C-alpha cells in the first residue's frame, strides 16, 4: 500500500544526507490530472511529494538529461549522489543506464516505489473533461478512485490504466537502495499480442498504417528527450556533418528518424512507454519498440535493464545466435 507519510519521511532523511545533492520525485501538477517532476533540495519540501496513479513520468531520464557544465577552474566537481524515486519500469531504466555506464552506481540513490499501474492521461481527460482544479487519485484494488470537484468516482483499472501497465511484469523496482512499501503483484504476463497482430498484416497494410503515423510527426524530438535511454551527447539527429537525416519533416525523413530511433533502442528499451505518452501527435511509438523487445526476448532470451552486471545486448553475441535469415 502506498504510504505517503513514510515516503515523505524517507525523502526528508535522504535529502538531508551530506552526500545527496537533491531528490527527484513527483509533485501535484498545476491543474487537473497533471503531475510534474519535483526537484527537492531541502527537507521542507517533503510535503510537496506525492505518489499516485498519475505519476507516470519516468524520473530516471533526469539522471542523464541534466547538462554537465564545465567545472570552473579551482573548483571540485559535485560528486554527491542524486536520489531518484522509481517505479518498477523506471528502475529498469536506471539498471540499463548502469549496464551502459551512462551513470555511476555510487552517484545515485534509488528509492523504489512498487507501483500498481499508472493512468493514461488521454483516457482520463476524455472521461473527465475540463477539470482545472488538481485532482487526487488513488489505487484501490482493481479500481482507481478519483476525488473530483463534484464527488468521488470509482473507475475499473482496465478503463483508465496505461496500456503498458496492463501487461506489466515488473511493477516492483528491480533494483533500489530502499523500497518504500510492500511489493505488489504484477498485472500482466508481458504478452505481445498487439505486435503479433501487426506482424500478421501484409506489407501494404503495415505501411499504410505506419505511413499515416510517421507523416504526422512534427519532429519535436520529445520522444528522444524523454527517453531515459536516449542520452548520447552528440545525437545523430543534431549532427550536420555527416547529416544522415535531413531536418525536413516529410514522410521519408520522418520514417528514417523513427526507424533510427526505434533501432537505437533495440535491446535497450525498458518499455516505460514515455515516448508514446509524450508524443503530441499520438504516434504509437511503443509498437515499434515492443516489436524489437519481443524479438530480443523471444529469439535471444534477453531482457534489458534487469541485471547491472550483464553486457549490453548489441555489444555482445553468442556464436550460435540465430541466422536463418542469412543467405
Amino acid at each position: 500500500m502506498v504510504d505517503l507519510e513514510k515516503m515523505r519521511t524517507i525523502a526528508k532523511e535522504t535529502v538531508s544526507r551530506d552526500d545527496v545533492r537533491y531528490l527527484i520525485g513527483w509533485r501535484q501538477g498545476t491543474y487537473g490530472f497533471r503531475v510534474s517532476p519535483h526537484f527537492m533540495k531541502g527537507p521542507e519540501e517533503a510535503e510537496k511529494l506525492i505518489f499516485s496513479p498519475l505519476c507516470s513520468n519516468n524520473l530516471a531520464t533526469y539522471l542523464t538529461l541534466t547538462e554537465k557544465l564545465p567545472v570552473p577552474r579551482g573548483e571540485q566537481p559535485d560528486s554527491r549522489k542524486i536520489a531518484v524515486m522509481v517505479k518498477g519500469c523506471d528502475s529498469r531504466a536506471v539498471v540499463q543506464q548502469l549496464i551502459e555506464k551512462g551513470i555511476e552506481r555510487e552517484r545515485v540513490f534509488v528509492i523504489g516505489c512498487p507501483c500498481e499501474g499508472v493512468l493514461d492521461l488521454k483516457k482520463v481527460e476524455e472521461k473527465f473533461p475540463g477539470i482545472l482544479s488538481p485532482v487526487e487519485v488513488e489505487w484501490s484494488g482493481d479500481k482507481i478512485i478519483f476525488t473530483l470537484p463534484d464527488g468521488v468516482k470509482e473507475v475499473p483499472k482496465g478503463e483508465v490504466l496505461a496500456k503498458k501497465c496492463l501487461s506489466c511484469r515488473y511493477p516492483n523496482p528491480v533494483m533500489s537502495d530502499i523500497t518504500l512499501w510492500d511489493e505488489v503483484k504484477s498485472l500482466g504476463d508481458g504478452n505481445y499480442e498487439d505486435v503479433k497482430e501487426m506482424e500478421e498484416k501484409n506489407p501494404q497494410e503495415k505501411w499504410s498504417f505506419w505511413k499515416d503515423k510517421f507523416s504526422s510527426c512534427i519532429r519535436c524530438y520529445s520522444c528522444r528527450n524523454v527517453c531515459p535511454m536516449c542520452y548520447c551527447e552528440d545525437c545523430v539527429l543534431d549532427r550536420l556533418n555527416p547529416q544522415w537525416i535531413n531536418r525536413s519533416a516529410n514522410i521519408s525523413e520522418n520514417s528514417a528518424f523513427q526507424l533510427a530511433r526505434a533501432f537505437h533502442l533495440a535491446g535497450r528499451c525498458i518499455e516505460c512507454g514515455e515516448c508514446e505518452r509524450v508524443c503530441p501527435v499520438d504516434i504509437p511509438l511503443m509498437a515499434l519498440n515492443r516489436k524489437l523487445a519481443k524479438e530480443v526476448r523471444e529469439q535471444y532470451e534477453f531482457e534489458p535493464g534487469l541485471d547491472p552486471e550483464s553486457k549490453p545486448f548489441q555489444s555482445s553475441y553468442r556464436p550460435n545466435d540465430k541466422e536463418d535469415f542469412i543467405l
Partner: protein
Amino acid sequence: MDSMKLSKDKLNSFVAILAEQKQLYMPQAEGETLKYSPVNAKVQPDLVFSNTAVPAKSVVFPQVETLFRYEVEKTDIKMPAGEEERVLLGVRPCDARAMSIVDNLFSWDVDDPYYLGKREKTIVVGLACQKPGVNCFCSSVGGGPASTEGLDVLLTDLGESFLVKPLTEKGEKLCQAAGEIFEEASSDDLNSAEKLHQEAAALISRSIETGGIPEKLPGLWESGIWKEVSNACLGCGICTFLCPTCHCFDIQDEIEGFEGRRCRMWDSCMFGEYTLHTSGHNPRPTRRERTRNRINHKYNYFVQKFDVIACVGCGRCISSCPVNIDIIEILQQVKEAQ
C-alpha cells in the same frame, strides 16, 4: 457590409463555393491529430472542436518551405511557383490573432517574401470560440474567444445557423461571392451572438494579470526561478512547435540526385543545437537559459520591439507539455519573485 446569417444546412454549399474559388484549408484529423490541411469541395465540414493540435500558422508558415531550387554544381537559382489563393475556414480567434502578431516580425525592417506572400493571399474565416479549453487564457493577453484581430470574416455558431460577420475588404469580397446562400441577420441574431461571445468569455477559467511582467523580466535575469521552472524541462520542441506565435526557423540545403533546394523549417529555441557555435561554445548551455529566453522572447523582447506580447493564450504549450511546465505558473512566479 452588414452581418448575415448562414443556415447550417447550407454549410456544405458554402464550403463548396469557397473550395471552388480558392484552395480551402480546414481542420482535418490526421490520425488523431487535428491540423489545417487542404481539402476539396466535397469535404464534410466539422467545426466542432476546441482547437486544433497544430496551430493555423502551419498554413502561412509551413513546417518546411522551399526558398529556392538549384542544380548541383550549377549557378542558376529557380524560384518556387507563386502562392495560390487560399481560404482558411474555422480558425479560432487566438490562432488568427497570433498571425497578426507574427506579421509584425515578418514585415519588420526587411519584408519576408514567403510569409507575407502567403499571408496576403490568404483569407482567414474564423469561428468564435464557444468551448474554451481548460488552459485557455486568451483574455489575459489581449485576446478573447470572439476576438477579430487577424480575421477577415468571423462566424458565430448560433445553434441552427452561423452569424457571418465580414471584417475586412477581403472578407467582404469573399462573402459577396457566396452572396445568395446567406440570409439577412436580424437584430435578435446579433444580440444572441453577442450574448454567446460573453458566455464564452465567462467560461475561460484561467487568467493572469500580465501588466508589469515585461518591465519586471529584465530584473530577474539571474533569478533562481529560471532554474526552478526548467528543472523538469525535457528540452523538446513541443511548446515552440505547437505555439501559434513561435516563428523561429532554420535554413538548410537538401540535395536529391542532381537537384538541390534551400529550405527553411521550424526550429526551436529549446533545442541545444539552436544556438550552438561551430567552435562548440554555446551561449545558452542549459535548459535554464533556454527557458529564460523563451519566456523573455514572448513577454519581454517582443514587447520591446513591437509593443505586443507574443503569446495569445491558446494554452497549447501547457496542455501538451509532457512534464507540466505551465507558462501561467511561470508568469505567476515572475510576478511574485523579488
